[in-house]
Structures are given as structure tokens and as C-alpha cells.
């Protein structure tokens, strides 16, 4: 139980750290820490496979791309620029929605068995984890994923696909300039002539 509270506080603190930093790289480091704590959280719940996958996928693949982009754009040093403030208009409805959502979450947490009762859910990693047919083992996880929960699993994959397409559609809003072959030849000739002229001068 103490472990739960320590981890919980760390988790929330690191999440706040992520969104409160002005430097993107600090946010990334905060997020990395957040994922690590989350993985430990899963471990305390015997969800060993989930913990490892959490690190492999989110830290190993997703977050590293953030670092990559930050490093490439070299925007890591400069703080986020302040955009136009759209808060005043949306302040009241946004606040309301956030409050209701938070209230629901708190209600849910309080109702959940996690806090109220069973110690079993928050026990530390017992020796039996290594054995098969234990809750959270890789084999059981895989079996559940591909039999009982096959439909949600495939649905998630589909939703992710939709998200990818959505991103492409949003980001690629303006069609890039792709000249036709004839137009390209004209451009090339013009450029060459311009170069030649430059050479004469």
C-alpha cells in the first residue's frame, strides 16, 4: 500500500513535470521517468508483460522519436513560443468539462477495489511470477489477447491505423509541389540559363 502511494505521487508529479516544462527535452526526460514509474506500477500489479511492453513500445519506440525530432529540429534549446491565447473564450466550458471528468475519475477510483480492499492486487512480485499459468504471465497474456480479447485487440489496431491516416491527412493538408515532367524540364532549363548568366557576370 505504501508502495502504491509512493508510486502514485511520483507518477502524478512526473506527469505534471512533463506539461509544466518550457524546454521540450525536459518534458521528454520527464515522460521517460513517467513511463518507468508506470512500468513499476504494472509490476506491482503482477502485470509483468505489460510493464516490459510499456517500456519497449513507449520508451523504446515512441519517445525516442520525440528525441530524434527535437535533436533534428534543434528546437530543444529554445522554449516553446507562446501562441495566441484562446483561453478566455473556452475557459468556462473547458473548466467545466475538466471538472466533471476529474470528478468521474475520482469517483471511479474510490469505487475501485484497488483502494478499498484486496491486498492481493497490490502485493509485491511474488516468486510465483516466474511460473506459467500465473496471472500476468506472458503465456496467459498472449492467450487472452488472441482468444477472449481478440476483437478488442484487432479493434485497437484498426483505431491506431485510423489515427495514422488521420495524422497524414492533417499534416499533409497542403499538397506538395510536384511538377509534371514537362514543367520540370522547363524549370531545369531556366535554372541552367540563370546559372550560365551568373557565370558570365
Amino acid at each position: 500500500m505504501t508502495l502504491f502511494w509512493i508510486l502514485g505521487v511520483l507518477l502524478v508529479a512526473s506527469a505534471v513535470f512533463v506539461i509544466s516544462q518550457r524546454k521540450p527535452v525536459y518534458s521528454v526526460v520527464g515522460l521517460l521517468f513517467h513511463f518507468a514509474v508506470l512500468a513499476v506500477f504494472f509490476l506491482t500489479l503482477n502485470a509483468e508483460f505489460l510493464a516490459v511492453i510499456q517500456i519497449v513500445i513507449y520508451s523504446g519506440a515512441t519517445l525516442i522519436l520525440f528525441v530524434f525530432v527535437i535533436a533534428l529540429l534543434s528546437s530543444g534549446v529554445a522554449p516553446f513560443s507562446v501562441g495566441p491565447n484562446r483561453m478566455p473564450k473556452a475557459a468556462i466550458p473547458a473548466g467545466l468539462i475538466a471538472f466533471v471528468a476529474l470528478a468521474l475519475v475520482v469517483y471511479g477510483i474510490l469505487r475501485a477495489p484497488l483502494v478499498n480492499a484486496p491486498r492481493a492486487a497490490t502485493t509485491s512480485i511474488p516468486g510465483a511470477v516466474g511460473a506459467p499459468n500465473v496471472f500476468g504471465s506472458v503465456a496467459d497474456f498472449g492467450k487472452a489477447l488472441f482468444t477472449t480479447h481478440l476483437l478488442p485487440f484487432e479493434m485497437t489496431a484498426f483505431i491506431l491505423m485510423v489515427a495514422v491516416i488521420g495524422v497524414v491527412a492533417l499534416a499533409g493538408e497542403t499538397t506538395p509541389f510536384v511538377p509534371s515532367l514537362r514543367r520540370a524540364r522547363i524549370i531545369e532549363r531556366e535554372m541552367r540559363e540563370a546559372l550560365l548568366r551568373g557565370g558570365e557576370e
Partner: protein
Amino acid sequence: MSWLLVLIKSALLLFVVITTFAYAMLFERKIMGWMQLRPGPNRVGPWGLLQPAADAVKMLFKEDLTPSTADPLIYKLAPFISLVSAFGAYAIIPWSEPRPGDIWSIGNVNAGILFIFALTAIGVYGVSLGGWASGSKYPLLGSVRATAQMISYELAMTMSVIGVLIVAGTTSLAGIVHAQQRIWFVIPQLIGFAIYFVTAVAETNRAPFDLVEADAELVAGFHTEYSGLRFGLFFIAEYVNMLTVSCVATLLFFGGWNAPFGWTFIPGIVWFILKVLFFIFCYIWLRATMPRFRYDRLMAFGWKVLLPVATLNLIATAVVVAVKG
């Protein structure tokens, strides 16, 4: 009191791994020297055996500089990320047959091999954040390369390992070794082993895949600006990672502590150490032989050769196992 036992085991293991690192470094310099017709370090102690100690003292007393353009916090954090993720893997590597009561590893994790992959994934941050935080152009290039290279080769590496997992039917490292009592997986999974070996060299940033450091063009890459003990930490992490991939190769493909030809009179741990030594020798041998890859060829090789071959190997293994079982 089990946590005390784990603590003692961890301390012992840390000592063993650091000593092994020190002598792996000497071993590398010796072997490289011999392969280049030199005697290698031989001045400190008999046959240069005290060289690691001399190096450590030198490293400790060097000035620890932080460039003025660096981001101080992340600059100081990066070597620790590298080191911790490098050492973490040893928590679950089983050195010998786990007997009831005493176990040769600190933790027997069910998702063993995945745990190692997770730590490797975190290890990338040490390199990429360290390069970025140095605030200078060569380290930045090195870190961008590191990120791209590690993501690319991690895919092929995982694919090549999944073949072994399918054959063994478990992700626990001890379980995988048990499954190899009859035949080492290097024989049925020869392609998988070849791909694992190549990608492991790339993952540990060693020659011929050491584009991250590339002395010739990037002046030591991501750790150009590091000096003294902070550089030492990166250095340790690199060698410890090499040890880790050697251990994993031994566990997954060369039967771990299983004795070949039924020579069980030699204890399992000796076999394990011999096999790991063999792999370390191979890495040094490669470094002494191969010239560095060109960057675009490295990427093309990873995505266009290793990944498709690894995927095909995986599919073939799955089909064979499905038909047989």
C-alpha cells in the same frame, strides 16, 4: 530477509561485472594489439595486468568539464541513464543452472528476454540525450545517428530473437536454456543467430557499426565533450553492453550453461563464461578486421536486408513449429 539476499547478490554482481568490464577492456586492447602486430599494453604490472587500474585512476583524476553551451542537467544525467540501463540487464541473466534454494541470478523474470530489450531501449536515451545536451555539433550528429541506428536495428534484432522464443515456447531465459538441452538453437535458428549477431554489434555501437562514435568524421560522436569520470561511465556502459549481448547470445543460441558433447564434469558456469568469452573475442576480432560502414549503407542494410530476412526466418520458424506441434 529475501531483500537482503537480493542486495548482497546485486553488490557481488556489480563487483563482478565491473571487474569483467575492466579486463574485457584489457583483453580487447591485447587482442587488437596482437592482430595489428603489436604487443598491446604491457607496461603496468606483469603482461599489463594492472592497466585497468591505471586507467581507472587516470579517469578519476581527470578534469570534469561541462561546455558552456551544454544543458547542464541533461548533460549530467545522460551517462547515468546509459550506465543504469547497461547494468540492469544483469539482474535477470542466469549464470548457471538455477537450483531450488539458491539461484544464480538475482531475479527470474518470466518475460526475461523482453526485459533486456526494454533496458536496451532505455539505454538509447543515454547516447541520444548526452549527444544533444553537449550543445555542440558533432555530438548532436552522433546522437541523431545513434537514435536512427538503434531504432532500425532493434527491429531486426527483436525479429531474430522471436524465432528462438517460438522454438523454446517461453520468454524466460532459464526456460530457453532448458529447451536447449538436446540441441543448441544455433543449429535450427542459424539465420536468426547470424542476424542477432550482426544487429547486436550495431546495437552496442561497435565497429564496424560504430557510426555513432566514428572517430574519423565525428570525433568520437556523442561523447566528444565528455571527459573524466562522465566519459568513463559511457565507456563502462559500452563494454557492459557488449558483455550483455554476448551473454544473451550464449543464452539464446549457444545453450547457456549446457555443456557440449556431454562434458558435464566441467561445471555449467565455466561453460557459460567460456562461451561469453568466445563472443567477446568475436566482437574484438570484427573490430580489428572490418572498416566502418557508410551511413546510408548501414540504413539500407538494416532495413532492406536484415529486417526482411529476419521476418522470413520468423515466418518459416512459425510455420515449421505449427506443422510439427
